[in-house]
């Protein structure tokens, strides 16, 4: 039995003990914003927030989330309204195929939650575990910078 909080909701679920966190989120919880890319922690597409910190859900067991708070991209929009980061990604053309976007936004969100006004180098460091193969990183960094300079 796994008990944890996912996107603010208490979850109790009977799962196979060797299930990966990514499979639990995608297959059991239908949170398909969590993407599977490399399956070995190199690409960051499967990034979720684990008690506020970005982790790769493809190389974690679901059972290891016992008692934890998990946030996926589905938990970022509030009341049907996109978050500042989500809107900035659209405004800056930081989304092309979109596969890396959930992981990028979660990694960036974790940074801004701890450090609301990061320098560009800190932004690049924070998303260094997330690969993008389409738009390149400049538009993504611009989007994050724009949000960090707003307040």
């Amino acid at each position: 039995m796994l008990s944890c909080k996912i996107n603010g909701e208490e979850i109790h679920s009977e799962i196979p003990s060797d299930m990966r966190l990514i499979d639990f989120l995608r297959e059991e919880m239908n949170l398909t914003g969590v993407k599977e890319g490399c399956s070995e922690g190199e690409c960051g597409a499967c990034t979720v927030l684990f008690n506020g910190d970005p982790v790769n859900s493809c190389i974690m067991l679901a059972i290891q989330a016992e008692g934890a708070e998990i946030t996926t991209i589905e938990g970022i929009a509030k009341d049907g309204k996109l978050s500042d980061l989500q809107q900035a990604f659209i405004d800056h053309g930081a989304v092309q195929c979109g596969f890396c976007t959930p992981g990028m936004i979660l990694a960036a969100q974790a940074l801004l939650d701890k450090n609301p006004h990061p320098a560009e180098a800190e932004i690049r460091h924070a998303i260094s575990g997330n690969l993008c193969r389409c738009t390149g990183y400049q538009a993504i960094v611009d989007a994050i910078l724009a949000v960090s300079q707003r307040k």
Partner: protein
Amino acid sequence: MDVIRPGSLQDCLRILKTEHTIPIAGGTDLMVNLALNKISPDRIIDITGLQELKEISLSDNFLKIGALVTFSRLAGKEIAQYPCCNALREAAEKMGSPQIRNRATIGGNLVTGSSAGDGSVAILALDAQVELTGLDGIRKVPLSLFYSGYHQTAIHSDELLTAVYIPIRPGTSSFQKVGKRNALAIAVASLAIYSYIRDSHFEQIYIAIGSVAPTPIRAVKTDLFLQGQKITSGVIKEAARIIQDEIAPITDIRGTADYRRKLIANLLADQLQQLSESKN
């Protein structure tokens, strides 16, 4: 395959006694090896719930770092207050990616026994000891005797690496690595130095190197040469020559043996140079 979450260290050690059972912590190496079928245990013990393995404490001039302390924590304030542990903090900052650092643990890095393990190389230069705990008791092993071969260590299958002890003393340490890119790069070569300089001379120096042998190694001949020396450009040059002769790296997909030799010589020269500048 069954995954068990023991409620206590004692429970964990009891289950570890059963055959084909291995512990998992951050899982950043183990989960990949499982997916590739490089290992296929019957049972996995998830130790991440054992709070007592997450502590960092100082007593009798030894910094005790619990096996479950993550690289993100090693890169932070708790280690930064000890100049002699700089190498560990610098290695932790450079290891993997933010996601990996949030999960990967120091205990996992050490027992994985990779020659390229950033944390392992840094800690080897710090003259550390590991604490291995079994049902029959605890033993401490100097890290310099911990590695026995390629991905082989002195730990028994029914023991858990529970902590690392680093002596806190005067002096500083540093770590550098070279990889194909900054994030998520397995080191082509890495080098860590702990040293204590008194009256401009090396009172004590320990050099550790990664990715040039089946395990992280100490550069003992180079240490001996530098012991008691004053850092001059001539000494730096000679040390860089000695360390190249001392190591026998191999050529693999990440780099050639020659390239590694030169990298190590340059990493050593660079860190010695920085030491000499910080002294003046």
